[in-house]
């Protein structure tokens, strides 16, 4: 889609305005959006999570953000910030703390209260969150000095034990 203003560049800012109860939509390229005073920066990630992600990530420590944060798929938090998408289900464990905060901001809660799911019997071996798995994660959390996470894991292990 071309920019409504210059009709030259691709529109990347989609603005819905409600003025006197009339809804209008405006599609602008970055330059025209900036010229019209619509808040945007050329460096901001171009997906709906961009702003929220930036805010959450700024709170998190930035020292290790480019190291592979997920051992399963190798995704880093930088990848997530750039695309707004996680690499695999294991990323939820690898980035548990910052994701919990992000989920709270997005949904107002990080606790699933809907349908529970049991992995089918033939796949029980793949079941995540077993005690063994939690102990591994606790050790990793202590080694990387993530004490808040470690405390949480210890609580969960106590419940299971």
């Amino acid at each position, binding site marked *: 889609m071309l920019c409504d203003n210059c009709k030259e560049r691709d529109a990347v800012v989609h603005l819905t305005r409600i003025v006197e109860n009339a*809804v209008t939509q405006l599609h602008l390229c970055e330059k025209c959006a900036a010229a019209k005073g619509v808040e945007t920066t050329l460096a901001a990630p171009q997906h709906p999570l961009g702003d929220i992600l930036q805010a959450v990530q700024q709170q998190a420590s930035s020292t290790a953000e480019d190291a592979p944060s997920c051992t399963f*798929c190798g995704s880093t938090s930088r990848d997530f910030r750039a695309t707004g998408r996680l690499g695999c289900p294991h990323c939820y464990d690898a980035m548990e703390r910052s994701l919990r905060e992000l989920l709270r901001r997005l*949904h107002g809660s990080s606790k*699933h209260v809907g349908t529970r799911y049991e992995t089918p019997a033939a*796949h029980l071996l793949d079941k*995540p969150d077993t005690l063994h798995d939690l102990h591994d994660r606790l050790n990793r959390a202590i080694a990387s000095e993530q004490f808040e996470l470690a405390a949480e894991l210890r609580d969960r292990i106590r419940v299971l034990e």
Partner: protein
Amino acid sequence: MSTRPNLDLSLLPDGGVRWLDASGPNADVVISTRMRLARNVTGYAFSGRARDGERLRMLAQVRDALGGVPSLSGSMLLRLDDMPTQDRQLLHERHLVSKELAGLDQQHPLRTGAAVFLGQSVGLLVNEEDHLRLQALRSGFAVPQAFEDVQRLDQELGAQVPYAFHREFGFLTACPTNTGTGLRASVLIHLPGLVLTKEIGKVLAGLQQMGLTYRGLYGEGSEVVGNFFQLSNQTTLGRSEDELQDLLVRVVRHVIEREEEARRVLVRDAGYIIEDKLWRSYGTLRYARSLTFDEAMNYLSGVRLAVGLKLITGLSVYTLNKLLIFAQSAHLAHLEGRALTEGEANLARARYVRESLVSEGGESNDPLP
């Protein structure tokens, strides 16, 4: 199940558009109800990060599991990664696949392994942003029925394929906006009364406060055209599937009441102006020789309102629904049997609309001789 290199729409169960038949509750205002569940399979990276081979293995795993999924018995497998653009566009125009799965989204090129299984009232999109997108489409305002369809498919499939599930976060999805239930419950609703009375801004702002969001005809990223709005839940975590459905039902019921009230006000306070405007819409559709898509949608909105207000009595809501889908570019090209330029599509659209209005009953109902 069969795989076909070229799309033959007549092979789809009911052409994949049974939801257009206007048989559901409140079908004059609510065109359709759609329930979507996002699911991922353990052991693979999410589609966007997975390699081609992983996505193909995933598709094979799902295909092998379908023997235990009665909801999709007799379904048709369509490989989008093996299909010309026009056929993918056609499926997208029928709301059977998302723009991303169809590879029509500039940001996300067509993926190897992109496929869809189409059954009677449910569909299973494979290798979308999430590995699996389960969807059910129903005519009219039919939230519990559509949810029942998708829930049955979910239970059957989840017993065959291991889903990625987290005890705290729920069903895990590529984008955290879908995490939890993975449920997007939506209705496609026509609100010309609220737009004409300029009440729409208040109503949309109100529903956003209630936790719903609105989009255009084709969901995320699409524009509002022809006064058609897609209303859906904004969040997926922290509320159960039942709560999310209840919320949608309550808010949509209220929106329908506001729309009906707005229509009463229009007829009472601006009777002849509205009548003139709506008959002009009908006149344009009936006689125009070239129509852009947006024009057609806007005039169709007028005619739909005229039918709702019983100004025009001979036209069925089904015909209007059909025009909504079949007057789109890929459908017109399919009808003409060749690719069309934009100008040619505008001519073909006007011709198709004219012929439909004549053959399906609009012509004889003008009250004046």
